[in-house]
């Protein structure tokens, strides 16, 4: 089955989101997998919106942050939210930006070999212990109030896209 590029990216983002959602309710899943899926799905979602059916998405650095920033300035998905006032929606999206920055900074190519990332082991400092992502808490992401707000934001978008 061949899909258009936009449809294919949004379809894969949706599938990643479903895995993310299933893991969210399972405390036995190491948190690195939650963070990794969140990173992948937000990137694919933004890439889906950045392209048409006939073109590959452009290679854009920090694409999910850019997507949220545009949505904050010029909301196109406001009607998907359950917020009555647009100013509330804008504030809600703005509040997600710091977390979006953190998620994008965790990509291995951004984090490098000395900082936590959800995919590859890293070394703490130049002579510190080597850590596997599966043993790391990712509290700086998952413990934030915005983590659940981002989940709700994404859930609304995927629900709306499905309908």
């Amino acid at each position, binding site marked *: 089955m061949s899909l258009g590029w*936009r449809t294919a990216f949004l379809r894969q983002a949706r599938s990643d989101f479903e895995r993310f959602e299933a893991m969210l309710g399972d405390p036995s899943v190491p948190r690195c997998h939650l963070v990794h899926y969140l990173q992948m799905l937000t990137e694919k979602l*933004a890439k889906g*919106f*950045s*392209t*048409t059916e006939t073109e590959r998405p*452009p290679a*854009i*650095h*920090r694409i999910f*942050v*850019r*997507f949220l*920033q*545009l949505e*904050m*300035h*010029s*909301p*196109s*998905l406001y*009607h998907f939210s359950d917020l009555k006032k*647009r*100013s509330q929606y*804008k504030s809600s999206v703005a509040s997600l930006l710091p977390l979006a920055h953190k998620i994008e900074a965790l990509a291995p190519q951004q984090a490098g070999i000395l900082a936590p990332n959800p995919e590859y082991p890293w070394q703490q400092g130049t002579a510190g212990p080597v850590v596997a992502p599966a043993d790391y808490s990712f509290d700086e992401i998952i413990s934030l109030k915005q983590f659940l707000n981002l989940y709700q934001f994404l859930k609304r978008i995927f629900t709306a896209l499905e309908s």
Partner: protein
Amino acid sequence: MIMSTILESAKQLALDHVRNEPTISEIYLFPADNEIRLVEVAQDALPWEREFAPFYFQPDPQRGIPFPSGIALIRPEDKHQIQPPSRWGNWEQSILIWPEASK
């Protein structure tokens, strides 16, 4: 005829955006027959390297936007410097649609 309708819809969309976002200083329309292509200029936008990339949205007839739209956000210093996607044409073809009086 289609272009004039797109222009009207683009102006409506632009007005809607600037009413709610004071950091947008200018909005340009890159003319097309089948979609609204806007570049919005705002000081807090992230920088681009060589080419800016828009995000695309479906038509929204309930909000008076019967065409699909592509919208990009750029910094003031990137205007006329960072190029649009090739199928959008170039800056010389763009039309300043907000604020209207300055062009």
